[in-house]
């Protein structure tokens, strides 16, 4: 297998035109790039998983039908595997995970116990109990589903024989895994690599993978390639990505905001919050017996971290008054809120006025069918004149925000552009407190740097920020140690 030339169009409108889409046999290719620019669609096209009736596709200048009929393509498709994004929708809800893990050609693989043991870090009992359930949106957790899909890929990889070849794609395979599991996954992948004659493509935004691979698996230098996809005048290009670029940038990050602690806090959340039958407490470090009160100060950024699937987003939403808690005491801008308060108390005085929240998935948080200018409609205290809108966009968009950008439908923006628009919408409200859920999700390094710069400006203006993110490398560096909290949660009752 060698790099592909791919072009995809829909109704005559080009979606992807890329030469040198990076795939090589026996090599693990890590492909970075802003979300929504076509990394996944290109991989789906190579793997023959795109519905040709809906798109016009050519690969290596051949029509899609001709490409799929090629002998080598048939072989690496049949022997390969694709771990799709969004694990929830990629598992059949009416079949137990165990049956799905042993279906089709996977039934012939014998390495399941080994793969499961490693992906569950030795806790085979827990894995066994999970494998007997029917996958549903909230159970098993996203991380568990992601591990099941990865296990399928490793099972299929074990079936590869010398002389054959297979195309394996892992699309955002670590998005729902916490740091320990992510590292275990990377280690497992690296262990399988020399055994299988596979071309492995790992598509991700998680730059911390770079750190793990360069520090722990430096010996693999020839077997691992780092690439980055980006847009140049509407066309995709792929270039080499230098691990030092990321490592150097992270080491240059400094804590945001003033060095001395001002006395004025604007948000305080007591430990012991209980919501959806889970109890939460905040601690300063792992294993700490003393619970702390999560305190967010004016002009400072507070970082709340915790394992995957623990409920960090739930805690943020509860503070925002979007969930009915069973127990809670929160102080927002000097006003106390408990479980007795009703939605209208938040809607009248908190939402968009004292506090706002930026949600993780820009695709869901923005109206895809609206124009960019409509995203600014109905915001309290914001006059949506063309000048104001362009000024607001300029903070995160550079030259892109000029001219007709305001009239573009949101669904035509790249994932990174949507995420930045999502952030801009909340930031122009200039509320005292800003809650951010995974603010760097889907962004490349350049866009991440811009967002961090904007956060710095918000803090300088006196806003307080509470952030939740799995990018620990970055946010540990941006936050002072006294402003970092660890979330612990456990299920209560049956």
């Amino acid at each position: 297998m060698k790099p592909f030339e791919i072009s995809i169009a829909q109704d005559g409108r080009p979606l992807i035109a890329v030469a040198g889409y990076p795939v090589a046999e026996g090599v693990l290719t890590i492909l970075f790039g802003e979300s929504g620019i076509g990394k996944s669609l290109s991989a789906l096209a190579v793997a023959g998983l795109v519905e040709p009736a809906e798109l016009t596709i050519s690969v290596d200048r051949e029509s899609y039908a001709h490409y799929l009929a090629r002998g080598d393509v048939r072989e690496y498709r049949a022997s390969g595997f694709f771990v799709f994004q969004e694990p929830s929708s990629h598992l059949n809800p009416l079949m137990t995970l165990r049956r799905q893990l042993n279906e089709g050609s996977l039934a012939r693989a014998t390495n399941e116990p080994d793969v499961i043991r490693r992906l569950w870090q030795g806790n085979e009992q827990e894995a066994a109990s999970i494998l007997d359930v029917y996958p549903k949106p909230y159970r098993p957790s996203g991380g568990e589903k992601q591990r099941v899909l990865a296990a399928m890929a490793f099972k299929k990889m074990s079936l590869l024989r010398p002389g054959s070849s297979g195309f394996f794609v892992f699309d955002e395979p670590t998005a729902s895994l916490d740091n320990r599991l992510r590292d275990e996954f990377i280690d497992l992948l690296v262990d399988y690599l020399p055994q299988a004659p596979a071309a492995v493509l790992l598509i991700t935004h998680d730059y911390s993978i770079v750190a793990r691979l360069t520090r722990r698996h430096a010996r693999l230098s020839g077997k691992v390639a780092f690439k980055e996809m980006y847009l140049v005048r509407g066309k995709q290009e792929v270039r080499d990505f230098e691990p030092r670029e990321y490592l150097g940038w992270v080491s240059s990050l400094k804590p945001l905001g003033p060095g001395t602690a001002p006395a004025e806090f604007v948000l305080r959340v007591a430990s012991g919050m209980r919501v959806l039958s889970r109890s939460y407490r905040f601690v300063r470090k792992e294993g700490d017996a003393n619970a702390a009160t999560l305190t967010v100060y004016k002009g400072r950024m507070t970082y709340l971290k915790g394992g995957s699937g623990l409920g960090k987003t739930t805690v943020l939403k509860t503070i925002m008054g979007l969930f009915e808690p069973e127990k809670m005491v929160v102080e927002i801008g000097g006003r106390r809120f408990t479980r007795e308060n009703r939605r209208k108390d938040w809607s009248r005085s908190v939402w968009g006025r004292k506090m706002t929240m930026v949600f993780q998935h820009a695709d869901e948080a923005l109206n895809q069918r609206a124009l960019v200018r409509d995203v600014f409609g109905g915001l309290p205290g914001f006059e949506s004149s063309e000048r104001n809108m362009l000024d607001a966009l300029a903070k995160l968009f550079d030259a892109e925000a000029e001219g007709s950008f305001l009239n573009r439908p949101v669904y035509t923006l790249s994932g990174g552009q949507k995420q930045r628009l999502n952030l801009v919408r909340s930031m122009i409200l200039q509320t005292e407190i800003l809650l951010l859920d995974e603010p760097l999700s889907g962004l490349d390094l350049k866009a991440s740097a811009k967002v961090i710069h904007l956060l710095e400006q918000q803090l300088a203006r006196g806003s307080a920020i509470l952030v939740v993110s799995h990018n620990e490398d970055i946010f540990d560096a941006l936050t002072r140690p006294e402003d970092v909290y660890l979330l612990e949660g456990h299920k209560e009752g049956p």
Partner: protein
Amino acid sequence: MTRPPDFLVGLSDSLKGRLVSHAAGVVFVAVALAGFALSFEANAPAESAQERHLESYLELNGVDFGDPLDRALFRESLDRFYPGQAARNDSLLQAIDDARVRRWSGPGLRRGDTNRGFSPALLPEIAWQFAQFLLVYILALLGIYFGAERLGLYRFVKWKQGRESYLGESIRIVREYRHARANSRVRFPKGAVALDILKALGKGILTTLFFSPAYVIAYALKTSVDTSSLPFMILLALVSNGVLIQASNRFFELLVAEDRKGYVRTATVKNLHTSYEWNAKEGVPVRVLYRISQNLGPHVLRHLYENARFQFIPAMKELGSFLVTGLVIIEMALNIQGRLSYNLLQQILFGRYDVACVIIFSIFLAVKGTEVFVDTWHDFERRRYGF
């Protein structure tokens, strides 16, 4: 602590909620219908006043309402006295006719009972009619459930084959012929094109038949078939009013929606069979179209089918209600004596609203019963799949 009643133990909370809501619905409709019937009963004196008003017309000297000429003259006189009120005048003439019918061939005389209102003596007759109605309904509903799944599956496989439209297929053959003719001498595939056009025609006729309201089909067949027999009723309920087409279309759309879901692609990369050719080595066996229990083996269609089937269950509530509408229309439009819906129409026409309400309530119970059954069935399936 209070224990829930035994029949509710083991049911999910959502089903318990639904059952309670169904029970409340039954009570609500019973009360509403009783109120409706009583309000007409309360209006009875007003009706008598109306009757007295009509009597004065009926006793007009020299006017015989049975004579067409007298009727026409009376109608013209009305137009003179009440110009521009054609509807009112028509209604009055109609009301006079009604009064005459009531006087000479009224329900009391016809049925041999003088009681205008509802009496318990009517119950066995209504119950027997209801039992017949229920039998036809249940058999037709079963036919629709299985028929819709098979037809939907058939359409889906044809869609996956890219051969959904016979006309489209014949155009494709002609195009291929024109393309081939440019390079070599080939014969025009007359047979294949003619066959596709014939199939298209047949499909068009069947679609038209399935969409025809039952009364159109029944009247077209009335002189050659016994349209009042139970088997004909069941068949008519199945193939008319668009019920089967709507139901199979629902199942087809569910399959199409499932086909776009991610888990199908995961199944594909596990090397499950993906060919949709009939009876091909890794394709779809034709037996799926007639077997009661499906076994699709290692084919991705198995994933799709199971999910679509699961989601199709709640749709049976809506289809059941629509089927009842169809059955009521059939019985009423064909004037089938001794059937529940025809009885209902008669009661409404003769203004015996209390009896009509009892019949409406029994029809309502048939729909409600379907809803309770479908909810329980769906709940059972949900629990089976760990929802």
